[in-house]
Structures are given as C-alpha cells and as structure tokens.
C-alpha cells in the first residue's frame, strides 16, 4: 500500500457531494483520465447513497470511506453500520430496489459494476454493509 485515506461523515444526503469530491481529490494523485475520475466519482456516489438511503434511512449514522492506492491500483471501501442486506445477490440485480415506494432506479450496483474493475459486498441483517470497489488507473500521457 502506497497511500491511504480514511473519511467518516454523518449519513446526511448533503454529504454525498463532499464524499465524492474527497475521494476524487485523493485518487487524482494517480493522474487518472477525466473518464476514469468520473467513473470512480459516480461509483462512489452510488455506494455512499446506498449507505445513506438504505443502510441508515436517517441522518444519524456514520458512513466510513477507506481509500488505498498501491501503484496505479485504487481500492475504495464504503462501510456503514446500518440495517444490512438480507439477500446480497437479489440486491445486486439490475433495477432491484429495496425502497420501491421511492423513486430509486435500482441501478446503483449496476453502475458500480460497469464503472469499476470489481465490486464486492459484505453484509448481513443488522450487521451493516461494506462495499469494496477497485480500479486500475491507466497512465495519462503528458
């Protein structure tokens, strides 16, 4: 591991922008392309939104982001201590949403999988959720 950053914030929706911006700033050290940076920013936004909307459903929880770089590899862990996911494979199905009464598109995990190299999820009911995203950053030409 070359570098690491840890960020914790309240599960308020107003913190979604701040979380994306912080991870973007950290990952920028690897000189990603605009597209790579946008991909990471979007995937992080999806995972953070999930923690806020589904994990806690209130603004009093703590969302934790751990970001590590190793060479050109980025590993981002987004963790909450919320209600957990009873069926992870169901939750990760495209268009499935745990909040059908709202306007959630059910695309969060699909977007994460499309924009990152890998997505893994660890969760259990009442035990919180950890989403791990990885991506290898290509070298930008000068």
């Amino acid at each position, binding site marked *: 591991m070359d570098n690491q950053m840890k960020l914790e914030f309240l599960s308020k929706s107003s913190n979604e922008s701040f979380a994306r911006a912080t991870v973007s700033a950290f990952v920028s050290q690897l000189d990603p392309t605009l597209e790579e940076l946008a991909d990471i920013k*979007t995937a992080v936004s999806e995972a953070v939104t999930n923690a806020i909307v589904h994990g806690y459903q209130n603004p009093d929880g703590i969302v934790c982001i751990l970001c590590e770089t190793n060479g050109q590899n980025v590993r981002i862990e987004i963790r909450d201590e919320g209600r957990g996911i009873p069926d992870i494979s169901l939750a990760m199905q495209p268009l499935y949403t745990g909040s059908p009464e709202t*306007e959630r598109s059910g695309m969060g995990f699909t977007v994460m999988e499309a924009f990152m190299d890998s997505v893994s999820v660890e969760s259990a009911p009442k035990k919180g959720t950890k989403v791990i995203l990885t991506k290898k950053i290509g070298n930008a030409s000068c």
Partner: protein
Amino acid sequence: MQIALQLKQRTLIVSLTGELDHHGAEQIRSMIERAITERDVKNLIFDFSDLSFMDSSGIGMIIGRYKLIHSLGGGVALVCTSPQMKKLVTMSGLGRLISVCQSVEQALTKVKGA
C-alpha cells in the same frame, strides 16, 4: 446545484448546473411537481448541458417525472452532451422512454411531436 425553470408555451424547461445526486434529486422533484400543478405544463425538457455530474438518482428522478408527464399525455426530452452522462443514460435504457437531444431547440421539436 442551481435550478432554473422556464415555461415555453406548454413546455417546462428545467435547466441544471452543478451536480445532480440523491440530495439534489429530492429538491428538483418537489419544484417540478409544484410547477406542473401551478402552471399549464404539458411537456418537460431536462436541460443538463451545463450539468457536471449525475448518478443514478438523476435517472430515477427523470423516470418519475416521465411517468407523470406521460400520464398527462405530454412528452419528455433530455438535453445531455457529457460523455459520462450519456454512458449512464444508455446503461439505464432511458433513451427508450424519452428523446435524448443535443440542444434545447432539438428537444422542443421532439416533445411537441410527442
């Protein structure tokens, strides 16, 4: 995120600048629904040409407004020029429901023909 609403005949044009996420989607939803209730709105155009970021919360918000406008017999179009947002729109299949355009002028033509 900055929101501007403009009514052109019966088409409501919603122009956003900044970033659209779950937090922003909540704000827009209530503004648009209030405008539709208070003004004679039939069609809806989302002008995202100056939006620098959007995640799937924006897609959900657009689909929600599409269902409402569609039930009123109107059309919905999206003006979107960012490659990142186009990627998201393509992935969601949103283009099968609404017109995705390069300009507000093009979008106006599309919704009036809906």
